[in-house]
């Protein structure tokens, strides 16, 4: 690091009459594009979605009926990535699994963020006893091992994409709720909020016009991290045997099923799902980083 790199904080506004020469959107876009890793991440995510959702249109396989006579075959012209322990085409399976992993990850991440945002903003904005109680609940939620809740819920409901989204969404909202609460606490004493309150603006107006829009950037950044975490969590859940039920699958389930064949040399059962998970989770994290640069918010 050179001397000059120690940043000097900037302050002082532009002189009267001077306007920003570049529009806001362009600037944010430029900031995002400058983060090379984030751009790569965005490309990876787009490709992953295309692979999972458009891939089956091109590479058609039967992912419903097993074919024991074709189990554990090595990659060939018929099966580009070989077949798994019950004879499903592995490449086709990657696509089906990708649909589940990506859908659950995306939806659960968003759900967690939404719940967290609502909870945190209500707690932070209301303050006082309500805040104290709501935050103690969050603390309790953080203190209860997620594994436990997962276990109970998966014993009650049958794990499919929808229930997994709900389960993970209900587990992961705690962190964003703390973030949003902290943000709301500072926002609600901002001058523009005080001004609005002073002239008789209602709570609804304050929350909907000022608090929510101003936490959006934090939330969007956090949501990308949540999505990454949700995809990982799905993998863990599958590893622990509580994943979606066959014939549906997800990358985590494929990976953990493949792991039992690790020493049998069936690399095509392990490498593709493993790499897919790592790539996509990395990609979402990278996007989050890029978005953070773009919004210039501190998150996570």
């Amino acid at each position, binding site marked *: 690091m050179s001397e000059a790199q120690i940043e000097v904080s900037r302050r002082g506004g532009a002189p009267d009459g001077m306007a920003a020469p570049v529009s806001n959107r362009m600037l944010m876009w430029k900031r995002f594009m400058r983060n090379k*890793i984030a751009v790569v991440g965005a490309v990876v995510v787009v490709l992953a979605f295309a692979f999972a959702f458009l891939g089956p249109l091109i590479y058609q396989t039967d992912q419903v009926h097993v074919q024991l006579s074709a189990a554990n075959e090595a990659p060939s012209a018929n099966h580009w990535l070989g077949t798994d322990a019950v004879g499903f085409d592995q490449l086709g399976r990657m696509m089906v699994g990708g649909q589940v992993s990506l859908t659950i990850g995306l939806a659960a991440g968003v759900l967690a963020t939404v719940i967290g945002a609502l909870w945190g903003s209500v707690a932070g904005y209301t303050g006082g006893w309500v805040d104290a109680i709501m935050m103690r609940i969050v603390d309790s939620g953080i*203190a209860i091992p997620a594994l436990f809740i997962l276990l109970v819920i998966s014993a009650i409901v049958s794990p499919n994409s929808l229930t997994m989204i709900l389960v993970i969404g209900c587990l992961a909202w705690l962190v964003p709720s703390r973030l949003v609460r902290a943000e709301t606490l500072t926002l609600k004493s901002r001058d523009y909020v005080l001004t609005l309150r002073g002239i008789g603006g209602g709570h609804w107006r304050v929350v909907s016009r000022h608090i929510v829009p101003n936490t959006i950037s934090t939330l969007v950044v956090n949501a990308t991290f949540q999505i990454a975490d949700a995809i990982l969590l799905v993998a863990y859940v599958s590893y622990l045997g509580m994943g979606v039920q066959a014939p549906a699958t997800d990358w985590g389930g494929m990976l953990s099923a493949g792991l039992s064949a690790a020493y049998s040399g069936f690399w095509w059962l392990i490498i593709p799902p493993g790499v897919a998970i790592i790539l996509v989770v*990395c990609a979402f994290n990278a996007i989050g980083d890029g978005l953070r640069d773009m919004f210039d918010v501190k998150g996570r």
Partner: protein
Amino acid sequence: METFRFILKRVGQSVVVVFLVTIVVFALLHLLPGGPARGILGVQATPEQIAAFKEKRGLDEPLVIQYLEYLGRLLQGDLGRSYVLNAPVADLIIDRLPKTLLLSVLSAAVGLMIALPLGIWQAYKRNRPSDYVLTSLSFVAYATPVFFVGLILIIVFTQWLSWFPPLAPRGDSIADILSDPQALVLPVTTAALGIIALFSRYMRASTLDNLSEDYVRTAAAKGTSEGQILARHVFRNSLTSITTMLGYYIPVLFAGSLVVEQLFNYPGMGLLFWNAAQAPDFPVLLGCVLIISIATVIGSLLADLVQVFIDPRVRHSS
């Protein structure tokens, strides 16, 4: 005095949290379909045995009564007796907790010892090739599920290279376990990788935040060199945000320890919990969850106290 009041308040909050946890967990347990009796007694159990089991454990009483009884016993320090393992829950936890703690503390220590300097280094070299490479690596480490990491490490270091044994130390006491450091390498590494990945990111961000603070400029104006600024000023200030994160990392560490314990044959809390959950062994489950939540609460309490220690402002402003 202020510090004392602050601690008192936080302890009070923690007690409330633990209390809430017991309620939630107790309620959740009873959502488990079927109850524990048949599962624990097995296929061959007779209806009489099942009825006797339920009666003896009070499982046929209303939930509220059961909870109050549990609470009453809990307040007397009695965690109950395992349905499955023929031992009091307290004994089981006393037996397993130190092992898990040992593993967690070791991996957290190793992880942080690597993560913190790494994060600072990345902040120091920000947006340079070395930063990009390290950032990408930490992304990958973060994105790799623990069970996958563990497997890769085992294959590489025990099957290919034969450097380390594939099993964690078998000893029953901490001293026994520590006397076999070679066997600790892989489990600790597996658990530490995630910490390194996550906390190097935190540290990098935190360091960058601090680097843009005014006091850094003041230090530069004093003629303090970059390295010294990082060491004397930024490092410690960045720690304050890291400690909070660490407090909340405890449950995650615990979840990770389950996988590590399974992979490396290390019977700790994670496994105790997991097996109890499969049974379901209510007293053990409750005990484990209680201990974990207390650990988490203590963890964040400690994090706060460390904050007080690091950051004199907290004592006065909270």
